[in-house]
């Protein structure tokens, strides 16, 4: 350890010292850029500089998976192993990379100073198999060094309001134009701004669909010397990548949304909390904030009003739970991302215990539109109960994975058709809807209208807009196994149901995926799932079994012992004896007569014909599930 030169640390962390504990995450990031990892001496020096107890600093380093307290390669190649990437053989890619460098995952290549790691969702699902390479403060999402750092995405849809500037390059302030909505807001009274958002019927797009106007109103009415607006850009729900594209391609829309929110509630300070897996967006945001300051859109007495507002960027460090609003506050405050008990709610006791409005990126992107158009005009888009447009992150087995913006009210079939339909001319098996914390839709749900009200009655959560498509050849148990692993990895460990439940769920799903289900695993999995759902402290735990419980309803046969791992659902094994893994795999028989195929696993091609909405509405009701619930993000 003698080679550690602590004199390099001071200049790197100096600007965070006045922040105290709240400067801990930025200081650890800065220290890690200098040293490549966080050796004990460095952690101790950071602790002393920021006056944070040593044990607490250690606890924070241990919590975030992108902080390393053991040596790691200077260059880290992370390979996503979550469902969408799993479909594109990310396991094979990980193996290939390890073989190429002659490494085990997490090992350091002595010559190249490089480490290859599996990673939870990198938010690059449409780029599957996704890879993120970081080296110091440099990052790339492509493997070849000569490639550009930036993901190039398909952005399409039937309407381009939020994604107007989204394509393949960042819109500068001159392209974005004047903050029209914000300037209009400044001419209004703050309560009029809040009333306009309320009247628009906008609800949160992060997953929980809470009415934005009511949130703003709560914070506006709270009395305090300081209030905050926080942009939740900790998008980490497997299958979700919309906020990445919005921020990377059009950062000013989010910033303008924050300005309006701040004016509406009377906040003078804002934070954008962006996940650690999006390091390449940070400089884009920094540049955009500078542009906004130079244009006089941020700063003191904006446009000669008495309103002052500025924004600080905070970068996460690998923790899905920090997308939960109170865990996110804890993280900004420099602590482990443990969700708080609610109430009190953020609108009265949020960041630094002050009234806070926290909104998702997409939610904030709607705000300038609502103010500049007026809520009445905004409500002309979409349906009565779901006004506006919605971004859908379409990934998996479709021809054109990408980001699709549509008015609320189109059907799932229309959305999938837009994405080119099921890839490789296969039939549809299922769509994971809403995200890891979502539910499975089958071809029976193809004509469900994509609105909050229709999806709710079909038992499908809109969540964060995830539409992950699986073709007929896919083994849902492999998908569930990956989801199980994801939640076990991401549980914060605070409350017992989730801390132990995600682990037990993963173990059972592993067994099931291998064809080694034990007798009673079905009931065991249900008990664990419902216990997490009913009794967990926060949205993560409450939805960690959502997709699993939904799959258990759609394909109950999958979870019984002795099921083969390839034609699940089709084979009706009468076996109740545990069969060894290998022989089970061999027994997969393609000769199952079609008529034996259960109704549940029947697969239908997506036809491009017009939806038969009426007929299907009744069916949607029939398949209504009890499992409707919100997701972690809000």
């Amino acid at each position, binding site marked *: 350890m003698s080679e550690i030169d602590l004199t390099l640390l001071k200049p790197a962390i100096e600007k965070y010292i006045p922040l105290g504990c709240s400067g801990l995450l930025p200081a650890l990031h800065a220290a890690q850029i200098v040293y490549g990892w966080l050796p004990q001496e460095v952690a101790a020096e950071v602790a002393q500089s920021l006056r944070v107890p040593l*044990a607490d600093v250690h606890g924070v380093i241990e919590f975030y998976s992108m902080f390393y307290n053991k040596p790691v390669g200077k260059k880290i190649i992370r390979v996503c192993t979550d469902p969408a990437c799993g479909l594109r053989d990310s396991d094979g890619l990980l193996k290939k990379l390890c073989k190429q460098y002659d490494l085990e995952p997490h090992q350091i290549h002595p010559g190249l100073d490089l480490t290859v790691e599996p990673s939870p969702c990198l938010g690059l699902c449409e780029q599957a198999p996704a890879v993120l390479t970081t080296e110091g403060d440099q990052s790339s999402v492509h493997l070849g060094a000569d490639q550009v750092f930036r993901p190039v995405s398909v952005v399409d849809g039937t309407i381009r309001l939020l994604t107007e500037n989204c394509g393949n390059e960042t819109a500068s302030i001159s392209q974005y134009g004047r903050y029209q909505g914000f300037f209009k807001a400044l001419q209004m009274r703050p309560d009029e701004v809040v009333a306009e958002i309320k009247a628009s019927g906008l609800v949160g797009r992060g997953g929980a669909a809470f009415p934005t106007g009511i949130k703003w109103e709560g914070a506006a009415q709270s009395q305090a010397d300081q209030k905050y607006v926080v942009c939740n850009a900790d998008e980490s729900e497997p299958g979700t990548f919309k906020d990445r594209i919005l921020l990377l391609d059009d950062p000013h829309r989010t910033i303008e949304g924050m300005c309006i929110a701040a004016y509406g509630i009377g906040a003078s300070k804002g934070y954008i909390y962006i996940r650690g897996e999006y390091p390449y967006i940070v400089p884009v945001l920094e540049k955009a904030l500078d542009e906004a300051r130079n244009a006089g859109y941020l700063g003191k007495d904006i446009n000669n009003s008495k309103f002052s507002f500025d924004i600080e960027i905070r970068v996460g460090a690998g923790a899905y739970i920090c997308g939960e609003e109170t865990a996110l506050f804890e993280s900004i405050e420099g602590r482990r991302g443990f969700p708080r008990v609610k109430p009190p709610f953020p609108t009265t006791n949020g960041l630094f215990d002050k009234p806070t409005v926290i909104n998702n990126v997409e939610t904030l992107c709607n705000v300038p539109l609502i103010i500049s158009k007026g809520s009445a005009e905004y409500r002309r888009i979409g349906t009565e109960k779901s006004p506006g447009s919605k971004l859908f992150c379409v990934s998996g087995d479709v021809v054109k994975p990408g980001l699709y913006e549509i008015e609320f009210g189109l059907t799932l079939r229309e959305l999938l058709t837009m994405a080119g339909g099921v890839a490789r001319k296969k039939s549809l098996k299922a769509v994971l809807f809403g995200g890891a914390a979502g539910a499975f839709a089958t071809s029976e749900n193809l004509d469900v209208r994509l609105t909050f009200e229709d999806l709710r009655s079909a038992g499908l959560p809109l969540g964060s807009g995830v539409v992950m498509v699986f073709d007929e050849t896919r083994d849902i148990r492999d998908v569930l196994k990956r989801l199980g692993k994801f939640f076990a990895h991401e549980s914060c*460990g605070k409350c017992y*149901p989730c801390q132990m439940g995600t682990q037990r769920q993963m173990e059972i799903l592993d067994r099931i995926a291998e064809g080694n289900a034990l007798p009673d695993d079905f009931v065991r999995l249900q008990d664990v799932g419902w216990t997490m759902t009913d*009794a967990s402290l926060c949205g993560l735990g409450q939805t960690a079994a959502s997709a699993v419980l939904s799959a258990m309803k759609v394909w109950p046969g999958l979870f019984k012992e002795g099921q083969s791992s390839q034609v699940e659902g089709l084979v009706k094994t009468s076996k109740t004896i545990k069969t060894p893994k290998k022989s089970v795999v061999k027994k997969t028989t393609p000769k199952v007569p079609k008529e034996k195929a259960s109704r549940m696993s029947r697969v239908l091609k997506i036809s491009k014909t017009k939806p038969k909405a009426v007929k299907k509405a009744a069916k949607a009701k029939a398949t209504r599930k009890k499992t409707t619930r919100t997701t972690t993000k809000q």
Partner: protein
Amino acid sequence: MTITLSMDGKEIRADEGKTLLEAARESGVDIPTICFHEATTANALCRICVVEVEGQRVLQPACIVKAAGNMKVQTRSEKVIRARRTILEMLASSMDLSEAPEIQQMMKEYGADTGRFPDAQRRESEVKDDNPMFIRDYSKCLLCWRCVQVCADDAQYTFAINFDGRGYETQIGTFFDKAIPETSCVMCGQCVGVCPTGALKPKREYLLEQGLSAGEISVMNTGRKQRKAK
């Protein structure tokens, strides 16, 4: 002010501001608790005290939810029993509960099967015997957080311990796993006092359990005194 609410179909009265747990206990209704301790901030993390409150989507932790007028509470509904039983079964599959008689009793009461989760990965670790005052046996730790809380701003403001890892792999730990004497620990013993499962134990008690006699332990202490005197 006194309010009236319904608990398991019976009307009970409670002072305004009381939690459901307090209201229940004052009325003789039993709600089990694990992480709750009167001397520490309630974090509602074990969720064993959850109850069903009419109109609420999910179960509510009785240790922190305030009783309100006209609330309808079920302390033993089917959902509640399933959650409590499953949490207890998961605990039994994760850790050593041999020195947690209250939890063993709870398991009997809720019909929890200790072997419910076969092939479950258990949390096991070596006994940490690194100081003269107490030992740390984290195989018995159920992560109630009380020790961390009393070491921090619930009592001692010493901040010697915090957490290692995350999720299922969370454990109580010191800065880079340093031995207790190398931390800011002042050996106040508060953590040992609030530990519900014998994970933290006075060294003397531990040595007696290891089969040492009081005399032998006394000699060990004499030896230390002599060394100190030199």
